[in-house]
């Protein structure tokens, strides 16, 4: 007989509902507007490391496929450019091939944008939100560079690739892995820095290498170009990713095109650019910071559950 029962307990379902209520109260008190944007989008994203699920059948589709959103970022930026002011959204997002103890291909995101804040201002607000959900606790922020120096005793901005590879081999058997500097930095981050962060409680990493800026603004720090990006870690679990948002349409187009070149080099098909987003940026995006926070992960931390599949009413396998 088919296993029809939910994977989560009733207590966990109640805890999720309470968490959602807390979050809505938090934003209502701060005058942040709740919005909704489409789940099925006519444009996917160019990020080579994120694969969307694509819907190809149905009368409404006409000739073009639609992409299940990997995050509501582009649509929310169009609202910001149209003068929405501060906004937040709680929605489902989808990422193909991401499944594990902390990943489900379909998951719940809390995403919000704060005009007038830089990434440090937003980190403080993220910490306040997390404390209102999990209870008050201290928090700290480390630059990406400082975290690598303290956990692995190497400088991610100046170390030679060979040094990064040597450090990686201390942590795992990398076999035949090949890739540039960012691949080795990503491996050191997941295998070496994150275990160190597990002992740091509620903390942020910020100011990533410029090559990993994604959609964040670039800045100079101590002679190195950084992306004004941050990630939130709670007891070593990555929970949120934020940007001091890039607002320059030409620079954004150049990054999309660079992503597509990287996709082609890896044998992935290039993606059509989201011209509506680029037009919104050209019209003018207010200086803002934004963050996407994995609500299922936050609920895992709130409930002590270590496997996302036992926290979702129906995980991917049961849906």
């Amino acid at each position, binding site marked *: 007989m088919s296993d029809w029962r939910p994977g989560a307990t009733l207590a966990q379902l109640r805890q999720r509902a309470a968490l959602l209520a807390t979050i809505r109260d938090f934003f209502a008190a701060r005058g942040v507007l709740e919005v909704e944007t489409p789940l099925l989008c006519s444009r996917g994203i160019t*990020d080579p*490391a994120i694969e969307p699920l694509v819907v190809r059948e149905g009368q409404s589709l006409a000739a073009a496929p639609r992409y299940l959103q990997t995050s509501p970022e582009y649509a929310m930026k169009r609202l910001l450019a149209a003068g929405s002011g501060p906004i937040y959204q709680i929605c489902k997002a989808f990422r193909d091939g991401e*499944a594990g103890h902390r990943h489900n291909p379909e998951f719940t995101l809390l995403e919000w944008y704060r005009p007038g804040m830089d990434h440090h201002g937003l980190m403080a607000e993220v910490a306040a939100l997390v404390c209102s959900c999990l209870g008050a606790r201290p928090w700290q922020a480390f630059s990406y560079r400082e975290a690598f120096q303290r956990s692995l005793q190497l400088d991610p901005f100046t170390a030679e690739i060979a040094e990064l590879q040597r450090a990686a081999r201390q942590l795992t*058997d990398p076999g035949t892995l090949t890739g540039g500097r960012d691949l080795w930095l*990503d*491996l050191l981050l*997941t295998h070496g820095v*994150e275990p160190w962060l597990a002992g740091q409680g509620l903390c942020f990493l910020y100011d990533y290498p410029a090559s990993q800026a994604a959609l964040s603004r670039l800045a100079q720090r101590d002679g190195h170009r950084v992306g004004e990006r941050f*990630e939130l870690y709670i007891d070593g679990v*990555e929970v949120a990713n934020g940007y001091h948002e890039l607002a320059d349409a030409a620079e954004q187009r150049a990054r999309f095109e660079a992503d597509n070149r990287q996709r082609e080099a890896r044998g992935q098909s290039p993606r059509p650019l989201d011209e509506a987003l680029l037009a919104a940026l050209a019209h003018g995006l207010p200086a803002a910071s934004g963050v996407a926070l994995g609500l299922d992960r936050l609920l895992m931390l709130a409930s002590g559950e270590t496997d996302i599949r036992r926290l979702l009413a129906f995980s991917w396998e049961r849906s």
Partner: protein
Amino acid sequence: MIAGKFFSSVIPVMANFSTNEFRPGLKVMLDGDPCSILENEFVKPGKGQAFNRVRMRNLKTGRVWERTFKSGESLEGADVMDRTMEYLYTDGEFWYFMEPDTFEQHQADAKAVGDSYLWLKEQDSCEVTLYNGSPLSVAPANFVELEIVETDPGLKGDTAQGGSKPAKLSTGAVVKVPLFVTTGEVVRVDTRTGEYQNRVSK
């Protein structure tokens, strides 16, 4: 794949498995050796490259270690099968096993048998792992019953507790048994730990 194309009647074409299909127990080829997946953890640094940290066992050497793959990489499946077989006998060089349904016999060398020979009694069932049709390893049943061929004389009245002594079994294995157990008796042993469990009445 070329081998599969021209010799498909001899060599089965094994499927490829992507990292998101790696499950505990899956057998794959890595660097020319058959390996068993023990654990598979998906990790991703927020943005950026996703990896799978995979604990695996090399089925030839027994080595267990963690290898990191880019998510989405794939490995060829290994033609490895676990079969329950009956142990027949050894001629000193090879150990012979038989599949109970087909009566097909397989000979395993000392490398495949390893330390398992210490627990193999004729006509007992055991697990034989076949790689490309030949025995790669042999695992005895978790519990086996073997006769004691040599141990110090039993102590009368000492049936309760306290003390143990070495006893040599018919296969050559030496296990610790309670003092009251005597030569000629059959004992039950946990092959995973080599520990005596109890006497077996004949």
